[in-house]
C-alpha cells in the first residue's frame, strides 16, 4: 500500500543517508549483543543444570 505523507519537516538528505549506514552498524551491534547474551545464558544454563543434577545424585 502506498501511503501519502504530508511532511513539514526537512529531514535533511544527508541525515537520511547517514542513518541508513549508522543504523546498520548499530543494529548489528545490538543484534550481536543479543546473540552473545543469549549464548551466555545458555552456557550458564548448562552449568546450573549440571550443578542441580549433581545435587540430585
Amino acid at each position, binding site marked *: 500500500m502506498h501511503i501519502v*505523507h504530508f511532511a513539514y519537516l526537512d529531514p535533511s538528505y*544527508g541525515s537520511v543517508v547517514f542513518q541508513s549506514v549508522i543504523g546498520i552498524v548499530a543494529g548489528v551491534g545490538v543484534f550481536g549483543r543479543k546473540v552473545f547474551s543469549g549464548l551466555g545464558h545458555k552456557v550458564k544454563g548448562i552449568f546450573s543444570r549440571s550443578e542441580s543434577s549433581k545435587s540430585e545424585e
Partner: protein
Amino acid sequence: METNQAQQHTSSFRDPAGFVFSYDGKIYRQVNRDGADDYDHFMSSGLYQKLVSNGWLIPHKEIKDTKKFGAHKKRYKVIQPEMLSFISYPYEWTFHQLRDAALLTLKVQKLALKHGMILKDSSAYNVQFIGRKPVFIDTLSFWRYTQGDPWEGYKQFCEHFLAPLVLCAYDSPEILPTLRVFLDGIPLDLASRMLPGKARLHPGILSHIYMHASSQKRYDKLDESKKVENKPRKVSPMALNGLMASLENNIKKLKLSKRDTQWGEYYTFTNYSDQSFEYKKKLVKDLLNQVKPKVVWDLGANDGTFSNIAAELGAYTIAFDVDSKAVEQGYNHKDKYDDLVLPLVQDLSNPSPSLGWAHAERHSLEERGPADAVMALALIHHLAITGHSPFSQIAGFFARISRFLIIEFVPKGDSKVDLLLSAFSRNKFEGYTEENFEAAFSKYFKLVDKKPVKGTKRVLYLYKTK
C-alpha cells in the same frame, strides 16, 4: 482559522495534519483531513491506549459537536487534550529534564514502531512536564510506517536533544539557555565545533554528532538533481532499531560533571535558626491558606522547599530558580509531590521572552501568567541590590504576573543583605528601606497581611494585585 471565536494557537501552524486552537478558555486540537488516516490508525492500532496507560501521552477526548467552533474546510475531527497548568520550554529545563524528555521520545518511538507507526518529527517542544514527569503532547506526531522508511525526525532529535545534552556533559548545563536562540536545536555542525577534541573518542558522539554533521555537509553540497537520482533511501527495520538503541544507550550514559554553584546548597547555609526557618514555613503556609491558589509560581525557589508547602495545599507549583544546579536538585528529588511541583530554570533579570515566528511561537513568562499566587521569598535583595532593579520596577513586574503575592522583605542588617552590599563600596543603596519597599508595592497591590519572621529582621507580606 475561519471562525470568529476559535483561535488557532500561534505556535501550531506547520503540521498539515492539524493544529491546536483555543475556544472558550479550553485547548483543542483539530485533525485535518490530511491527517485522518494516520490519526485513525493511531487510535485503532492500540497505540494511543498503550501510550496513555503508560502515562507517556496526554489523554484526549473526541468532541462530537464541532459546530460551535465554526466551519473549517479541512476539518476531520476535533479532540480535546487534557489541559496543562503550565507550558514550559526546553531552554527552561535542566540537563536531566532534557535527558528524560529525550528518553521519553525514544520510548514513544519504539512503541509506535511496534504498532506500525513512526514519529514524523522529534521536536523537544512535543514534550511537556506535569510536575516532574515528562509527557508527550503532540497527538498528531505519528504517521504510518512502511518497512524501509527512514526516521525523518533523526536530524531534529540529534539537534533538539543529543547535541545540547552532549554539550552539557562535556562543558556545562549553562549551555541550555542558548536554546532560546537555537529554537530548532543546536546545529550539528556547530555542536561538533563547540565540543572538545576528546569527544571524538566516544563512538556514539563521533557517529551521531561529528559524522552525522559531515554527512549533512556533504549532501547539502550536492545539487538537487543528484539528490533526486539518489532517492529513495531505505532504512531497514533492523537499522532503525539499532539507531534507537544506540541513541538511547548514549543518552543514558551522559552525565554532568560535578561542579559547585552559588546557590546549590543555599538552605544548608541559611543565616537563621532552625526555629526561625520552621516558623517561616508555618507563616508561608498560613498566608497561602488565605489565598487557596490553584497555581503558584515560586520565584527564587532554590531546591523547592517552599514550593512543597504550596503543593501540600494542593496547588500546582512552578519552582523557578536561576541556578540550574538547585533546580536539578529539586527535579531529581522525587517525592509525593511529583505531579504538583515543576522545577524550572528562570533568570528573573532576563526572563523568558516571546520567541519564534512573529514573536508568538513561544510565550514569554509574563504571557503564561498571571499565577494565582506568586511567592518571592528571600529574593527582593537579589533583584534590588545585585540586579539594581528599583522597587517600583519589581512591584510592577510582579503585579503583571500574579493575582496574589507573598513576598519577603529582607532589610539591611540581615547578614545576607550585608554580604551583597559589601560588594559595592560606593553605592550604599540608601533607598533600600522597608518604607520605600512598602510605598512602591502599595501602588500596584493592596496589603492583605503582614507578618514578621520571628528570630529575624525579615517581614512577610501578603499582597493582592489591584
